[in-house]
């Protein structure tokens, strides 16, 4: 027995959903979707659940993660109900449902909360700047330590519990399985999708989808590389020429690709860039700022001019802290994990289903 909840739809609009209520259930979206199959029928089903506000069904579903937003459904929707953007909004919503702190949801629903969080970081760093009495060396030392602590802390206290919650909602509640064999056999799925996003390639390629996939792949690898170079190889302090050169290349990759992504969102040429939620903007812009400021800081180091332009490092640090404490744990960054875990969990569920 399902009880409709119309408040759900209103709430979902804050996550970016538009006009999905206009759906008259023709199913064109599902018919044109290159990723939907007989076993994974979407987006119409998710649109219907959203209209009725069936929260439990949505919370337990992995289907929003199976969509890679080529936008064909929105193009062909006769009611202009924007099913593609609905799937996107459901992903934002699911991120907030998985998050045990509830902060993801708060930030997603409220631009003011986002701004307040960013300003709090700025205020904190300014306080530190005025009262710590740290010099350049201390700043860079503690900055580096922060990076390590943030990665460990965010992962241990936020992301890991959230992935366990995701598993609980989507696997345990449906299959109640703990068979090790299944979990191990399905594991390649996780790594494959995490590092290739290859499902994107199955999308209909009418709007330079392959190019987009390539840029995105390069960005993911560039970002991970930059993370590794700055945190574990201490790029800013390194003297190893290979590390230094790699850092330049990786940070350049990050800001060049994100610049292109910002342009795409401004131009709105493809369905997936027509609608941009604040969380989308923050994600690409902060990534861009991180890349370009990191590039700039290292350049100043190499030119021996960092002391005279230390503000740039402070700017970089501010962006970094905002990124690590807000966007990574509670913002769009998490899609990196959830998308690949969704493929993993989906495989587990299918392997445990008798029909499979």
């Amino acid at each position, binding site marked *: *027995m399902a*009880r*409709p909840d*119309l408040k759900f739809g*209103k709430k979902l609009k804050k996550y970016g959903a538009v006009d999905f209520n*206009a759906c*008259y259930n023709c199913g064109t979206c599902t018919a044109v979707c290159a990723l939907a199959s007989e076993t994974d029928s979407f987006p119409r089903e998710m649109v219907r659940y959203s209209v*009725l506000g*069936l929260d439990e069904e949505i919370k337990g579903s992995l289907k929003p993660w199976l969509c890679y937003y080529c936008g064909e459904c929105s193009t062909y929707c006769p009611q202009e109900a924007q099913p593609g953007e609905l799937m996107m909004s459901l992903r934002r919503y699911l991120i907030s449902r998985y998050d045990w702190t509830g902060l993801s949801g708060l930030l997603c629903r409220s631009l003011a909360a986002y701004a307040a969080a960013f300003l709090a970081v700025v205020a904190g760093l300014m306080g530190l700047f005025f009262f710590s009495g740290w010099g350049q060396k201390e700043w860079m030392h503690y900055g580096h330590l922060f990076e390590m602590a943030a990665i460990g802390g965010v992962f241990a206290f936020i992301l890991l519990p959230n992935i366990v919650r995701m598993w609980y909602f989507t696997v345990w509640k449906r299959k109640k399985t703990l068979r090790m064999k299944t979990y191990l056999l399905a594991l390649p799925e996780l790594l494959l999708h995490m590092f290739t996003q290859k499902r994107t390639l199955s999308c209909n390629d009418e709007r330079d989808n392959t190019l987009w996939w390539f840029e995105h792949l390069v960005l993911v690898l560039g970002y991970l590389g930059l993370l590794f170079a700055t945190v574990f190889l201490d790029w800013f302090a390194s003297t190893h020429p290979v590390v230094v050169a790699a850092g330049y290349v990786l940070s350049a990759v990050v800001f060049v690709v994100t610049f292109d992504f910002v342009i795409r969102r401004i131009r709105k040429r493809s369905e997936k860039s027509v609608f941009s939620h604040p969380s989308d903007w923050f994600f690409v812009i902060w990534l861009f700022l991180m890349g370009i400021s990191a590039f700039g800081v290292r350049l100043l180091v190499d030119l021996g001019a960092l002391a005279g332009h230390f503000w740039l490092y402070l700017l970089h640090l501010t962006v970094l802290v905002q990124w690590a404490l807000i966007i990574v744990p509670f913002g769009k960054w998490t899609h990196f994990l959830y998308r690949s875990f969704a493929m993993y969990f989906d495989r587990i569920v299918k392997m445990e289903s008798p029909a499979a």
Partner: protein
Amino acid sequence: MKRKIGVYICHCGGNISDYVDVEKVRQAAAKEAGVALARTMEFACADSSQKEIAQDIQEGAVDSFVVASCSPKLHLPTFQSVAERAGLNKYQYVHANIREQVSWAHSDDKEGATAKAVQFVRAAIAKVRLAKAIEPIEIQTQRAVLVVGAGVAGMKAATSLAKMGVNVYLIEKEHFVGGRVSQWDVLCITEETGKDLVTRFYIDVVANQNITLFTGAELVECSGSMGNFTVKVRITPRYVKDICEKDRMRRAIEVCPVEVVDEFNFSITKRKAIYHNFPSQYPLVAVVDMKHCTRCGKCEKECEKIDFSQEEKVVELKVGSILVAAGFDPYTPKNGEFGYQVYDNVITLPQFKRLVAISDTELKWKGRPVQTIAYIYCVGSRQLEGENKYCSRYCCLTTICAAIKAGEKFSGLSHFHFTRGIRTYGKYETFFYEASKRGQVFLQSFEDDPPQVTQKDGRTLVRIHDILTSRREVEVDADLVVLVTGMVPRTDGRIGEILKLPRGRDRFYNEIHMKLRPVETVIDGVTIAGACRGPQNVVEAINSSLSAAIKSYSFVRRDTLAIEPIVAEIDPDACTWCEACAKACPFDAIARDASTGKEIARVNTPVCKGCGMCLPVCPANAIQLRTFSDEEVQQMIGVLAHEL
């Protein structure tokens, strides 16, 4: 005088000649007594062929003729017109159908088909030998039309006829005009209220000198026929002479101690025994409902215009045509149908619309605030079992519009539509879109699995296996359940009985042909308009009323009307007035006549359809049907039987 019969046999471009040896038929026909010439033609209906026949007649070669071709349904009027153009009486032409009944039916047997065609043609020749010239019957027409029902359809038709210079008697059973539309609040698409629309029509009606409006008026008797009907109309008085000064009428209504169920609001409120349905309702004079009035006299003290001395009267009117726009009734659900009359928060769509119209700041039902509304569609329409198989057409749109309007008027409403598939056809689709976009939820089930309404712990639950959600059971806790009831014919069907209007399988008044003659009935001179023809919305009702007005006009536009003279004739010497023929006549065209001193049957020729039902029941064989006399038919049978 010896007949000079012409026989024209058509090839129909092979349709006939491929299977029937037309030359053989021609030869057989040529041998028949009285046949002056027999020809075959590639296409008898072609201009050149028509001219050829006309020429034969004009040259005196032919004084009567047979055409053997397709069904007379198709080309009888064509060759009748050939006869008339050539100066020959059109009843001196007889048609033989050798296509539908011969060549097409026997394409496997060429010889048999040819033999049958020969028989048909010979039978037609036998008939045409006896054919007499007969003239159409002419009737003097009354240049007036009776319009029954002053709803939007009736008022529009009346105005349209009046503008063409016809006298119109517009009769309305109720004491106020407007019919059902006056009961609706905001109407869809035009954003006008029913009240406003009715006011506009009413202004047109009263402004036209040619229209006489009778309210409280009912048709009680009708005699005569097309072009010349005599009708009797019973008029119930209002018992109020005129508009009372200032707000004396309001006070007169206030002091009335009698309260009765208000049918204008579909029984959701009460009214007084002296009333109008709303203050600006037309005509502006209030009415005393004498069925419930106790004659306490309180209202008389408030307003001197109240007059209990008024009496019921019957007026006799002469009209050339009757236009029926009697409207519809909303379907009343059966007790227990979706909880109707069992749960007190289950109401019908008309009740809901009135509730929304009369509620001001808050939507309340029986004192309880309403937030969640469940609409159950197709109640009393599209029935799997039950007599209403039809779709009522207007309800999907009107429900969606009512829900949108209710949502605009009252905040915080949730709407759940339990449908069997939405049919907001044509331009109205945008309203479905609008309602969906505003977050109204549409659920759907098939006819064999309707929604269930139950009550538990004081809550009303509506459940459905929603086919749009993989037949999952969805439950809505509703404050108000609105049964979307369709249209049914008026319970009071006396007008149809008086005029002998046939009804269709849906029990609405039937037109002759849905496409070809959509507003005419088999009763000549009587047209139908609006929702008495079948479910339709205001737009469609107005369309049909304009059509019906034109059709009614065609019966009265000239001083005389020519009608088909194929009617029954009584032999006064043989007739003994046994009444058998009058009883057999489906059109009431036969009556007793003693004017000559002898009691005999008399045929009211304008009413007679020439159906022939009276012929076989006459024990004295005193009735003949023109152009189908015993002799003519016997001759034809003789030919056909002889050949067998």
